[in-house]
């Protein structure tokens, strides 16, 4: 009967971890209640109490999850900034642990064999999850993140913080986002520990239903945490932004313009596959085929995080259909990617008087003389010489607004690169990739192969790649560079 009740609780959505635990503690009496503690449930009696208390403290603040078994120690520790700071300086030492003192690190250290997912072995699942958590931490640059958080909390405490509201806004945004990451990881660690406690408990009770359900829950977690591994690749400050992708044909006339057109088409299809919105902002077609250059806007979460992996020169080798002599040609297309920062997080304030705004591709007397549907606008930022153009909107006003947005993000990116150079401490080295760097080679003749020169990842189905199946290239690059970088 007890297991039935438990199962009901168990089947609820994730928040049920708490309720489940509560029901367990009610049914079986919690270990943390010394008077009625039944040591049978745990192999180890001397569970370090301070451990639990600190954990309680942590979980209250960091993940909002509270262990019912520790209710007794539920001292108040609100969220005042002082406490927060204390929290960050202490939590490095604290890790959630099972009733018998097992921590995530200990699980990793145990090196339990990781079997296939289909094997219903809790130790294997637990081990896999613990490994994933460790990888996530690594990708989040855990140690740096903690230092950074501490620094940010320190700054947030300053009484004069809001004297500079722009700076304050920036700090609080970053603080919020890093806190989110910290909570995520803390939550995962805790969840793993709770699952293990449950399994052990079920075993003690010889409740096989409960045990198998707990193992299933663990398996589920193993799968979801795998996805989080990927998400952790995109933890850069601007990774979640939408972005612009710009493709420019290299030297070599029609063949390379055609190639630039193919590359742009590949990104359009990739973006559509991922469910992103795609709009052409600026496009300069080649006279015969392809494009001289083009810029698209890719709208959606993490568009920049993924697309930034594409920055660089892309090389094509094939027999050119534009060469009557049917010779083999090598051509290049350069790809640049710019994040679109949200309002209020711009790094550069554009001065209207620094701009030169021009209508282009306009000839003749204009005004009432001309009927045009083309109202292309190019904006030049005179001090930097950076330009942006848009011609795909239906009014000049909108073309100007779009071009301004492109210009803004280019200036922002330039400024971020400058700042990154100045303080190389907490930066994303990926964006530094100059777009002259050759990153990938697409060979269509004499054999067919797309190969990433950074990761050596390769695919022989060139058509699928050119139709936008580039996720594997992106992920392998992100994994590689992330995991290398944090070594």
């Amino acid at each position: 009967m007890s297991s039935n009740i438990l199962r009901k609780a168990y089947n609820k959505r994730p928040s049920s971890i708490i309720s489940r635990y509560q029901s367990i503690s009610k049914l079986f009496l919690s270990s943390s209640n010394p008077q009625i503690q039944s040591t049978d449930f745990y192999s180890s009696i001397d569970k370090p109490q301070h451990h639990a208390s600190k954990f309680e403290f942590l979980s209250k603040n960091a993940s909002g999850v509270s262990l019912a078994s520790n209710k007794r120690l539920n001292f108040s520790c609100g969220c005042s900034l002082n406490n927060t700071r204390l929290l960050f300086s202490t939590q490095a030492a604290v890790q959630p642990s099972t009733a018998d003192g097992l921590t995530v690190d200990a699980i990793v250290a145990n090196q339990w064999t990781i079997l296939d997912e289909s094997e219903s072995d809790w130790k294997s699942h637990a081990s896999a999850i613990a490994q994933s958590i460790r990888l996530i931490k690594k990708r989040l640059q855990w140690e740096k993140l903690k230092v950074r958080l501490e620094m940010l909390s320190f700054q947030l405490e300053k009484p004069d913080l809001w004297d500079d509201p722009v700076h304050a806004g920036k700090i609080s945004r970053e603080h919020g986002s890093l806190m989110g990451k910290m909570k995520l990881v803390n939550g995962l660690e805790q969840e793993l520990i709770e699952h293990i406690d449950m399994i052990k408990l079920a075993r003690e009770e010889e409740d096989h239903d409960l045990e198998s359900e707990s193992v299933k829950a663990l398996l589920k977690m193993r799968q979801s945490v795998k996805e989080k591994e990927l998400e952790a690749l995109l933890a850069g400050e601007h990774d979640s932004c939408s972005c612009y992708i710009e493709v420019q044909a290299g030297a070599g006339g029609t063949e390379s313009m055609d190639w630039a057109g193919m590359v742009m088409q590949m990104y359009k299809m990739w973006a559509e596959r991922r469910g992103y919105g795609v709009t052409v902002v600026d496009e300069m077609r080649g006279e015969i085929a392809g494009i001289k250059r083009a810029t698209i806007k890719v709208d959606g979460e993490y568009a920049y995080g993924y697309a930034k992996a594409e920055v660089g020169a892309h090389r094509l080798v094939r027999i050119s259909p534009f060469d009557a002599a049917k010779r083999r040609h090598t051509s290049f297309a350069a790809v640049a990617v710019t994040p679109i920062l949200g309002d209020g997080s711009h790094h550069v304030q554009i001065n209207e008087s620094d701009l030169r705004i021009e209508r282009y591709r306009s000839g003749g007397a204009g005004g009432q003389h001309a009927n045009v549907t083309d109202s292309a606008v190019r904006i030049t930022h005179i001090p930097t010489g950076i330009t942006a153009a848009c011609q795909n909107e239906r009014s000049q006003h909108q073309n100007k607004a779009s071009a301004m947005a492109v210009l803004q993000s280019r200036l922002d990116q330039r400024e971020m690169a400058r700042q990154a150079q100045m303080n190389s401490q907490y930066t994303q080295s990926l964006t530094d990739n100059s777009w002259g760097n050759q990153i990938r080679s697409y060979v269509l003749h004499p054999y067919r192969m797309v190969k990433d020169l950074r990761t050596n990842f390769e695919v022989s189905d060139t058509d699928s790649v050119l139709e936008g199946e580039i996720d594997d290239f992106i992920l392998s690059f992100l994994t590689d560079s992330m995991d290398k970088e944090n070594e």
Partner: protein
Amino acid sequence: MNLSSLARLSSLSTVFASRTLNRSIAFKPISCSSSVSVPHAPTSLNPNLPLFLRPPTFTATLSDLQKWQNWAKNLASSIGSSFTDSDNGPDSEILHRELNWLIEDALQNPKPLLTRNDSDHDIVLQLRADLGDLYTLWKQRIEKRRPFQYIVGCEHWRDLVLSVEEGVLIPRPETELIIDLVDDTIKQNEELKEGLWVDLGTGSGAIAIGIGKILGDSGRVIAIDLSPIAVQVASFNVNRYNLQDKISVKQGSWFEPLIEFEGRVAGFVSNPPYIPSGHIKGLQAEVGRHEPILALDGGEDGMSDLLHLCKGAALMLKPGGFFAFETNGEDQCLFLVDHMETIHHDSFHNLKIIPDFAGIQRFVTGIRI
């Protein structure tokens, strides 16, 4: 001057009347060749609802639409740069883009056409016009050089989408800047922001609506046009942007209907006809063959209406009031400024000539002393 302008007015009105007549015969509204006829006019104001506002009562499979699109694309490609070479008309790249916009306006949900989903060729799309109508429209675009904006019944202008049809000038991108000039002015002058503005020769109502949207709560606009079609279309657009309490559209000649506001107007804005009569024949086909001559012909040197309006500005504006006129270019700007400095030298100051984004000296602005 009075006499000649009167004469011109009456001659234009004749032209105008004959064109209207012409139009009602020649211009068959984009109608449903299908038997399921659609009530096109929910409001009696405008008989020609822009395509994008019509109900999506037609259907076609994706593959049928794509076949039509290929036909239309090929037709556009066949033009190459011949229109550009002959009269600075659109080349095939621009026509291709127009084609995409036509499809965008015709489709209830333009999204799926962008993707290449080879598998679902027979998905059924909801259209706002029958494929047969689209065929006729696109042929008119290419073969008759009918302006794209008349084809789809609207023009995107600033952040507005304005209904337009034969008989009404399609607002030009250059003219958008007048709103920026007004905006700059009223930002610095609260009194003007809350005052009475007039848009003379309002056409589709573009300038009036653009100004109406940036004025303060008590700011008002009177929009005037001689053409009854312009008055109809402008009223429709004003209603569509829900500005009927702020903007009143009146039929009449220039500032005649405004006599009661003499000396009380805060802003006086116009894009009057300014093309010299001799240039009308050589205009780009889209303009010369399809747009109303009443909106284009500015008399022998193109300045008749502009000069008339200078007088109006002197008469109507209150001290500190602002005016902005669009012109044909540098010559007209210089002439206007010179004229004002000599003939109306005690009426205006702060006269400025302002270029458009193509670098052509396009606008004259000033302040009533």
